[in-house]
């Protein structure tokens, strides 16, 4: 039993250790700040901080969405961060999405419904590039899950990364210097400033606060199943612990008559 557990643990460790992020950050990139995110609390059982995610949605809605699409998110999904049906309808109604062609076959637009996916800021990638100095702003639905460092990276990039370039480093025209961006030259101008948004709940809108909130919202966009998964997981694991105990007791009893 003991040897078995050790080998099993070894195999698991091999899998986990080897699969862990192994892309070393370049020497001139500072280490990412290690934030304590709401979903990492309670031994990783934490749920998404809804107040922060709602503020983060506000930042996305008022700042990021000018350039970044979020095509896998629908307005109805905002229920997952605690918006009411009426609020979702109101948010959707302010957006314009392509409608069905009219009687003459001409394209039309209409206000969005909760069932619509987030409206795209640009009609296509070429339009997006043209408006952004040749760079394509990445879709934000899975942005956080597609970057090493996840929320820590997003937070650092938009909350702390924009600093003056070190002496002697020439930043090309149309690019910006960011300590956390691989290669340091990024097309995105500093997106956040103190007071970029006015939070309804009175939270002070500092750059760090906005970055924190938008990272929380992007976590939700990448992993919308987080809360449901963990709620279910606790119950499943609890049940299995009990079942394991009972099964082990039964096994002991069955084997009690055997010399082995």
């Amino acid at each position, binding site marked *: 039993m003991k040897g078995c557990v050790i080998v099993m643990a070894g195999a698991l460790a091999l899998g*986990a250790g080897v699969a862990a992020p192994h892309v070393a950050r370049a020497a001139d990139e500072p280490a990412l700040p290690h934030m304590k995110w709401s979903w990492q609390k309670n031994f990783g059982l934490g749920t998404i901080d809804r107040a922060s995610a709602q503020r983060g949605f506000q930042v996305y809605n008022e700042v990021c969405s000018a350039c970044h699409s979020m095509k896998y998110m629908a307005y109805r999904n905002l229920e997952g961060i605690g918006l009411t049906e009426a609020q979702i309808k109101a948010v959707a109604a302010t957006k314009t999405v392509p409608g069905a062609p009219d009687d003459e076959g001409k394209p039309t637009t209409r206000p969005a419904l909760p069932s619509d996916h987030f409206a795209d800021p640009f009609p296509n990638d070429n339009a997006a590039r043209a408006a952004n100095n040749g760079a394509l702003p990445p879709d934000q639905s899975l942005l956080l899950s597609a970057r*090493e460092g996840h929320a820590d990276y997003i937070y650092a990039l938009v909350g702390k990364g924009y600093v003056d370039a070190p002496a002697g480093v020439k930043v090309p025209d149309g690019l910006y210097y960011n300590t956390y961006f691989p290669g340091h030259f990024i097309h995105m101008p500093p997106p956040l400033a103190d007071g970029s948004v006015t939070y309804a709940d009175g939270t002070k809108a500092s750059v760090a606060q906005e970055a924190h909130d938008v990272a929380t919202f992007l976590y939700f966009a990448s992993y*919308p199943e987080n809360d449901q998964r963990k709620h279910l997981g606790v119950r*499943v694991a609890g049940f299995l612990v009990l079942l394991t105990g009972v*099964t*082990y007791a039964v096994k002991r009893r*069955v084997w009690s008559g055997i010399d*082995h």
Partner: protein
Amino acid sequence: MAGLHTSDFKNPVVRWIDSRLPLFTLMSKEYGQFPTPKNFNYFWNFGALATINLLIMIATGVFLAMNYTPTATGAFDSVQRIMRDVNYGWLLRLVHMNGASMFFILIYVHIFRGMYYGSYKAPRELLWMTGVALLLLLMATAFMGYVLPWGQMSYWGATVITNLFGAIPLVGQWIVTLLWGGFAVGDPTLNRFFSLHYLLPFIIFGVVFLHVVALHITGSNNPLGIEVKSEQDTVPFHPYYTAKDSVGMCVYFLVFALIVFLRPYIFSEVDNNIPANVLQTPNEIVPEWYLLPYYAILRSVPDKLAGVCCMFGSILVLFVLPWLDTSPVRSARFRPIYRIMMFALVADMVLLGHVGANRPEGLFILEGRIGTVLYFAFYAALPFVGWLERPLPLPESISRPVLPPRSGGGGGGGPLPAGVAAKPMEKA
């Protein structure tokens, strides 16, 4: 009645069926009374666990396929639809995705057990070889499954691995074109991989059946590696090993659940959350963790064809393991040198896995080459170790070493339930 099977079952319905189609007799013989060595440790759970894992993969896979679109333009979107819109689609996918990693954890422990306790030796050579075939089928299935989400790592992994076949002289490029269904990895590749990914698990299921038939002909090996001598050495499979396997199953479910619900992305690459992009190569192209040691071997050999041969050879060599090992003793418990070699092999695999996960530069090149040489040295040394090694004395029987001298006790293996050992080992 002429032609009908004589059934021992009392229940008239069961008896009616059993005398025409003796499934109940089969199950009772193979999983009820089946005489099994009584000294298994928990390593002997892993075959059953891998079978359960296969069934879970097929079950979740069937439901995923109902919602998946096997086209280059639709695959990535359909996976996101499964994660976001399909009822419990996230659960199906996370179970399936991590189920692949669980499968390899189970299989690698299962193979370790087979090697450590000498389960591959006569008369179990074919049992072992069907197992190696299963490993190869599993790897092929896992690789093709990894391509289906059509993320960056899916696409570029598929490109790298399929290109390996191009190293084969003369027909190489022709094979690669055939695999791709075109002149690059694209829609036809995804279509055929999806089709094969759905097909192979059922072939695996068939080979598992052969694996189990072969097992039930020879009977199981055991931690002592000595043959069953008498009825005292065995217990009926049920309830003894059904009970013990159930414990292992619960622990396996618990580990699986903790991964799926708490750390479902621990095995995944961030790059696979970016849709496949033909024009942009990711910084690092790495396969899933379970293929890393072989990937390291591939990259450690400077010549492409030789590297491909070494990579495939590192698994194919397992087919001849029963004949490479010349020692008559099975269990490493009684083989002091082989025992150390086994642990060294495991350490070497971990080292190779680590090398495979990193860019082949600096020290990693040297480590990879040393690891590769050591890997093959293990197999090259086996015949000589078998001849030179002095094994420890073997116990007389399975019952003997665990029977403490008892006052008044006979030589019996404890009170066995009636009918336990009534049937000898022979198979119908």
